[in-house]
């Protein structure tokens, strides 16, 4: 009996229709289970995004217009805001990588129990509100804060360092908040790297350093890239930390969106900024995928 015959129904198996309907019922059940999530995403993500985006094409008078976009591309302030937003996001991502990679690598080297405890230290801040953590940094970083007063009482500095209310403070605060987003995917990937691979490389003649760079590092790249994409994209839309630790001088895109809403009482202007931010984030993901070849790396 050939497959074709079966499909044409030339051969009827015993209980075939019962089994077929059973299969259909099962797949309907799975679809039914996913339906709430599909609907929720549709209602709370896609519709609002679509609606908000559409607002950007109306001016204050409610007429169809590209005015809101023209302002973004013509004004030096908006250009500057985009540049600053990218600079900060890149800086935060780079620092997160420099701190997070060695941390994760070390975590894979310590005994499992120790690693689990250390991971809790990484994750506990993750469960604390961003606002609380940002204020905590203010307590640490400000002029009479713990860091400055300790350094001064130790005689290391005479004048307090300006650590908060500027770019430095914003980046410190953001790195702290973003680090878990890098560490989690990276550590998971590093853990899954077969230790035999590194051994094989060393056994075949690579120095430990060589084996790290030629084998372990490339194997950890999918996790690293996932972390980089997460941190970078989240940084692009960050609000609370630069607003509180930037002293008003560090203005990222999300802050510009907020200020636009208040000042213009017109959602179109803010919506246009949101649309540009969304498109930039998508473009960055696309670009990173092209550059890093994530799909290729994930293939095993």
């Amino acid at each position, binding site marked *: 009996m050939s497959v074709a015959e079966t499909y044409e129904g030339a051969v009827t198996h015993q209980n075939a229709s019962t089994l077929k309907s059973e299969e259909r019922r099962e797949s309907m059940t799975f679809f039914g289970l996913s339906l709430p999530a599909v609907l929720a995403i549709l209602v709370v993500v896609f519709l609002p995004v679509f609606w908000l985006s559409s607002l950007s094409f109306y001016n204050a008078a409610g007429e169809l217009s590209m005015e809101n976009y023209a302002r973004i591309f013509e004004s030096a*302030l908006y250009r500057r805001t985009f540049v600053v937003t990218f600079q900060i996001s890149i800086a935060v991502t780079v620092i997160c990588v420099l701190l997070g990679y060695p941390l994760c690598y070390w975590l894979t080297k310590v005994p499992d129990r120790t690693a689990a405890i250390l991971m809790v230290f990484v994750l506990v801040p993750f469960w604390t509100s961003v606002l609380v953590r940002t204020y905590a940094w203010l307590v640490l970083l*400000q*002029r009479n804060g713990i860091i400055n007063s300790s350094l001064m009482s130790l005689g290391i500095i005479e004048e307090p360092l300006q650590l908060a209310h500027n770019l430095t403070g914003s980046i410190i605060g953001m790195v702290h908040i973003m680090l878990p987003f890098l560490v989690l995917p990276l550590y998971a990937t590093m853990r899954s790297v077969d230790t035999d691979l590194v051994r094989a490389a060393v056994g075949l003649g690579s120095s430990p350093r060589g084996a790290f760079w030629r084998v372990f590092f490339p194997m950890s790249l999918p996790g690293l890239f996932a972390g980089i994409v997460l941190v970078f994209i989240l940084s692009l839309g960050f609000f609370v930390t630069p607003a509180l630790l930037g*002293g*008003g*001088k560090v*203005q990222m895109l999300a802050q510009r969106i907020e*200020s636009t809403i208040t000042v213009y009482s*017109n959602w179109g202007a803010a919506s246009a900024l949101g649309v540009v931010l969304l498109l930039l984030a998508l473009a960055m993901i696309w670009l990173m995928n092209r550059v890093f070849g994530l799909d290729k790396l994930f293939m095993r």
Partner: protein
Amino acid sequence: MKNNGKFTITAGLAASILAIATPAFAEGDVVFASWGGSFQDALRSAMLEPAASALNVTVKEDTTNGIQDVRAQITAGAVAWDVTEQDLPSCETLSREGSLEPIDYSIVDTTGIPEELIHENYIGFINFTKVIAYRKDAFGDNGPSNWAEFWDLENFPGKRSMHGKVNYNLEAALMADGVPMAEVYDTLATDEGMKRAWSKLGEIAPEVTVWYRGGSQSAQLLRDGEVDVIHMGHNRVESVIASGIEVAYAFDGGTMDVDCLLVPKGAPNVENAMRLINELLSAEAQARLAVTMPLGPVNTGAFDTGIISEEQALLVNTYPDNYGKQLLVDPTFYIGQLGELTEEFDTLIQQ
């Protein structure tokens, strides 16, 4: 505007009605919306509850986030508020948009209220002043107490903080540059004067450590000694002083803004609204609020009620001896150009 109106009304309805002040036998309702928080708590005990008893009406409360709430209700044709408090530029804007019921001056008694705060469609309610306050541990008793000194880093070195909004800062810059208080808005009305203000503001901008976002942050900055001199709300300065920090301030060069009361067009209980406004502006009600929080009564009669002691009166911005020292903000100046001015200001302060 039509679209976002619908969205905000849903948000507004979700916020719902906060609290109700009601006498034993109420004859009708009136809905009042203000800024919420401890401020509205003070309003409730000093003004709303006594008014409810006096008028024999139920005063329902709601909170507002600003002009967009009023616009949303009017656009949607579902006006829920009878009286709301808004800042002066918002009142003027709404008035120009034709969104307000005219104030019925046959019901509202204007005795004791400065003429400049009586308008066809709205009326002054409470005065807020931002003053130059400094920490005594940084400057002793002779800290910067006018705008020229605030700008003078040589003779008054120290960390500075200003509000991160364009409002008041252009005015401050001109005063620092020697423009007399009375001529500030005339000067700003000219291109040349505007240029002068920006260039003077550009001098201080790099020296400002923090452009604060809101009132609570300004208080924290002053209390923690994060900055040495700051331009901030005088009622909050008083609360910092009350917490035991040595701070000095003067009303000279302070920037005074006024919140006013208005009745949105199509309000359900216009007559009750007018009666409530009359109660809120009475000398006694205004005096009761002034002793609850050091905010300025618009009704100068408040100081003659005996409710405010001589000592307390000196701390109130609208006390006749203090009133003239401050610059009353011109609500019309920012209308129509706030967006533009804000963007120029943000460009100036951005790092």
